[in-house]
């Protein structure tokens, strides 16, 4: 199913920004809020994983219901997860389309990745000290 991807700040995401590699942030930024009717149509339950895809990339998120959303729009808190599917094109404004990407969403049996895993996939290396 096609959706509009809206990304933004949440209070929990804000609270964990000082520890972005920790569990709290990983949990928060890998959530995808969807209208309950859309969930029904996708044939998934709250708490199940979904695969979000577009030409830019793909990412696995967990689906959560939010009646405040309009049908056809999903909301994902800012973070490395959603940025996997955000295009760097700014249309000459300097600003990517953080709130208006078209994405395809489907149920998946794959697991979510943590930010660390996503970064490692990119070639990132955690500091082992501290």
């Amino acid at each position, binding site marked *: 199913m096609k959706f*509009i991807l*809206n990304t*933004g*700040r*949440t*209070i929990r995401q*804000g*609270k*964990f*920004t*000082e*520890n*972005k*590699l920790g569990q709290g942030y990983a949990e928060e930024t890998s959530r995808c809020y969807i209208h309950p009717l859309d969930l029904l149509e996708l044939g998934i339950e709250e708490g199940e994983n979904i695969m979000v895809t577009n030409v*830019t*990339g793909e990412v696995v998120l967990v689906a959560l219901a*939010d*009646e*405040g*959303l*309009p049908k056809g*729009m999903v*909301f994902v808190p*800012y*973070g*490395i997860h959603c*940025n*996997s599917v*955000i*295009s*760097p*094109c*700014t*249309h*000459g*404004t*300097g*600003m*990517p*389309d*953080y*709130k*208006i990407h078209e994405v395809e969403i489907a149920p998946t049996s794959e697991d979510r990745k943590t*930010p*660390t895993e996503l*970064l*490692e996939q*990119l*070639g*990132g*290396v*955690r*500091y*082992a*000290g*501290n």
Partner: protein
Amino acid sequence: MQEIKDMICPFCGCLCDDITLEIEAGKIVSTDNCCTIGNAKFLGKNRLKNPIKKIDGTWTDITYEEAVDTAVEMLLDADRPLLFGWSGTHGEAQCVGVHMNEILGGVIDNTTSVCHGPSILAIQEVGHPGCTLGQVKNRADLIIYWGCNPIEAHPRHMSRYTTYADGYFLDNAFRNRKVIVVDVRETETAKVADEFIRIKPGGDYAVLSSLRAILRGKSDMIPDSVAGVSKTQLMQVADMCKTCSFGALFFGVGLTMAKGKYKNVRNAIEFVDDLNRHTKFTLTPMRGHWNVYGANEVMAWMTGYPYAVDFCRGVAFYNPGETTAIDILARKECDACMIVASDPAAHFPRACVEQLRDIPLVVIDPFETMTTTIADLQIPVAVTGIDAEGTAYRMDGIPIKVKKAMDSDYPSDTEILTRIYNKMLEVKGL
């Protein structure tokens, strides 16, 4: 235990200055008056203990002196360096950054380009009718939050400056003041509004234009519904705006990141212009990071432009969309980067993060961040507001001195950047 009052929260653009901190054995143990986010910031743990450098794919602890030398080498070696971030540090450090960029001939950009950059583009077209937050607190009987969600992003905004803040002309703010929320989804903020306008995604421009048409007496042109908003509601809202005695429109990245970007903001500004022919109305962007507005101020007085300044030709050159961080990285033009007090690996599109990974990358930040993992060097610094001090500009332009609660052995951003800058001058024989 020591209690310090009237401290400043270095998290969001509200820059709350009434925070009480309790300190025990050189650590902040609790806060008072903070919201959850601010509280987490003050109680943050796990700082990097010393500079670290990635050698053959593994992190090695190094000294500050080695770190400074490495940073200088990496940046001086580049043809097209980018100095990015700045919204999470104090103004004095930002000034050093500008001087550094002059001699590097690089690009200096701040996080504005991915939050309210489009708002600045709109302001540069049509101006900005604004005011300080206390003016709103004391006078405004109508508040509009458009495309922003203060309950989540600026948790004390409503209690300090708007909905719940009593002011001189409003001794019972909650009853005397109306709040309108405009958004594509029913946010927590929308739930406490007197009036919620739900717009279809991408419909902001049309709704603003409709409101302006109604103000100008052209309501017969308006169809029954505009971007999902009924004409009845539009008429009612236009009337609320026109008849209030002081209206304040706050807007967020819901306008700047949506379809239309800076044109949405331009329309909002012109809506406020129009309203000033009927009553008093002001507009304020909800700036996110605590000192992102300061980064704009500093860069404006030092270079002439608020963000995205390119010194590759010696003179300051500004062209957002070309000289902004996202674009420079997406074009793979940038060949070394220094990130100060920001975490682009968490916030930039993946393609830009890949480019950052592929070039020499210096991070100046107290904590291990996502960007750390793809960096080559990180220099830990003191946290402004905790063990470093300096100037910050609130979202309405009020300059506030962010004080420190304690001393530490960490250098401040200003100190470390000055060391790097001085070393560059020395190497270049300037």
